[in-house]
């Protein structure tokens, strides 16, 4: 009587086992890369209701971040400026510009402008701008070089791993206080020396890496 299964089927279980292990590893890897904030969130560039250009205001005109984002040194949120802040200048400068139509309407009707959020940490994460700014972490460390962005996009992944990288080794991101809002600052050669001095000056220990530091 002829064999029902050919001879190669003896090794079929082995092949199936190897194949399934490979499939699991490959799918896991693909998901890990393509579904990560690094791939999904970086480069998120929503269209804003008003074509406000950070490149013009910060890059070309040299305005400081804190001129508009006034809460950044005192509050957990940096704050999107109220319409009044825009109109303080723009009722004199380019007062008739078509791009500012929505801002003028907002001022007249007392209706707020609905900006689209670009940088978002999940609701279960506590993030405090003032805690970072007051110890000398620069804006650009998390937001990238805003002064070159015509439309703001997310430059860093803002993932948990990314946060922890800096929390474990913050030295490269500490700056002198007058360079906090500088978009083009790069660490000097003696950065390690400066970081040690800065940490001693502010009496800061290593930033928290406990779960409860952020997941309160």
């Amino acid at each position, binding site marked *: 009587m002829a064999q029902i299964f050919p001879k190669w089927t003896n090794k079929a279980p082995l092949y199936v086992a190897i194949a399934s292990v490979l499939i699991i590893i490959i799918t896991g890897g693909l998901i890990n890369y393509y579904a990560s904030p690094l791939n*999904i*969130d970086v480069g*998120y560039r*929503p269209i804003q209701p008003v074509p406000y250009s950070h490149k013009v205001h910060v890059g070309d005109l040299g305005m400081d971040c804190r001129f508009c984002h*006034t*809460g950044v040194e*005192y*509050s*957990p*949120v940096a*704050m*999107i*400026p*109220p*319409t*009044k*802040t825009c109109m303080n200048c723009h009722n004199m400068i380019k007062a008739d510009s078509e791009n500012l139509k929505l801002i003028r309407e*907002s*001022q007249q009707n*007392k*209706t*707020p*402008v*609905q*900006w*689209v*959020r670009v940088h*978002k940490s999940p609701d279960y994460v506590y993030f405090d701008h003032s805690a970072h700014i007051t110890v000398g972490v620069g804006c650009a460390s998390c937001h990238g070089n805003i002064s070159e962005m015509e439309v703001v996009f997310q430059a860093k992944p803002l993932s948990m791993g990314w946060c922890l990288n800096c929390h474990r080794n913050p030295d490269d991101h500490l700056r002198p206080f007058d360079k906090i809002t500088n978009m083009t600052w790069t660490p000097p050669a003696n950065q390690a020396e400066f970081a040690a001095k800065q940490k001693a000056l502010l009496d800061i220990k290593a930033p928290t890496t406990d779960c409860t530091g952020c997941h309160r």
Partner: protein
Amino acid sequence: MSNTINSAVGGKKYWRSLDHLAETPEFKDLVQKEFPQGASELTDPVSRRKFLSLMGASMALAGLTSCRRPVEKIIPYVVKPEEIIPGKPQYYATNMPFGTESFGLLVESHEGRPTKIEGNPSHPTTKGSSNVFMQAEMLNLYDPDRSKQILENGMVSNWDKYRAAWNQEAQNYSENGGEGLAVLTESFASPTLKRLANAFLEKYPRARWVTYDSISDENIYKGLMAATGVMARPNYEFSKASVVLSLDADFLQMDSNDIQYSREFAGRRRVRSEKDSMNRLYVVEGTFSITGGMADHRLRVQSGQVGMFAAALAAELKAQGLAINAPQVSASFDAKWLKALAADLIANKGQSLVLGGRRQPAEVHALVALINDALLNTGKTVSYSVNPDAQVSNLESLVELTNAMNKGEISALFMLGGNPIYQAPADLAFTDGLA
């Protein structure tokens, strides 16, 4: 009791609610609504399959849509109020009037929305602590039943229309001195409101000003009125009291000024060194309370018998040699308990404290004042004060008002706070008077 639901089945009858047991129309209606119209279609095999396949498809699509990040808006101020920093809470120190009491509060507010109430650490009544009423007051701020605008016969109106309507009425009332005019408020101790009330009654001398709370210190004020001749309220100094007897008074949770009393009472329970001693608490009550749970010795007595107990205690104090004008009573309470209590109170003359609960009638409070006086506690552990601005709840005035309303003598009634339809004694027929 007949139970038609399970009448066909013998044995025990089970029911899920009182409505179910009574088979009210509301319950039958609810049973019908449990399977609303259209839901029966699901039991049909063909549409059920269609339904599931549609659900499956939408589930699959839902999985895809979640890959896209939801658009979230940031809505800043148009003109930012100068004192607000978004993200930073603000704290406001304020007062919460509560009956004739006032609590000092600290209210946390986020971008103009109050979120949490706590005691004000700098205020003498609360010193940073709070009670259940203060915590619950938060919800009152967002009560959907609060009217946000002037209503006229249930329709939205405005202040101008109200003023016009009232000015016309006021003309008539000025002429007849406020005949048929009545104001119903809750009790208060606000100097401003008292001044306005006086001004109102000066202008309309024949108008009625009625004050009523369903739960208040009315009986305490009345009892002290009988004992002292003035509308006084007692202030207890638990920090000086070594022996405390509470006659149905839940001073640790429910009574007026409970925050201060809890703190002072607990202060005398704390033993920090070998020289410190603890106070002793006797509680006589008819229900379970926090204060009763804290008692060293608790005697279970019907609420209606507490007055009798106070009289029996006065008699026992007299029998043990205290100069007190005690009424003669024949009551059978635990004689051993009563003897020990009287001996303890006499041994701590001037450092003991007897207090009666607001549930007890005025006579009990008059007797309590008498006992305290005989024990030389007045001026030491208990003192009496008169607040000229206090407008105390008065049930008789509500009864008079309701009778007048039912006779048709009241043509205009202003209710400032309170909910008399819900709170007023049911046999008063207050609701009928409104109609």
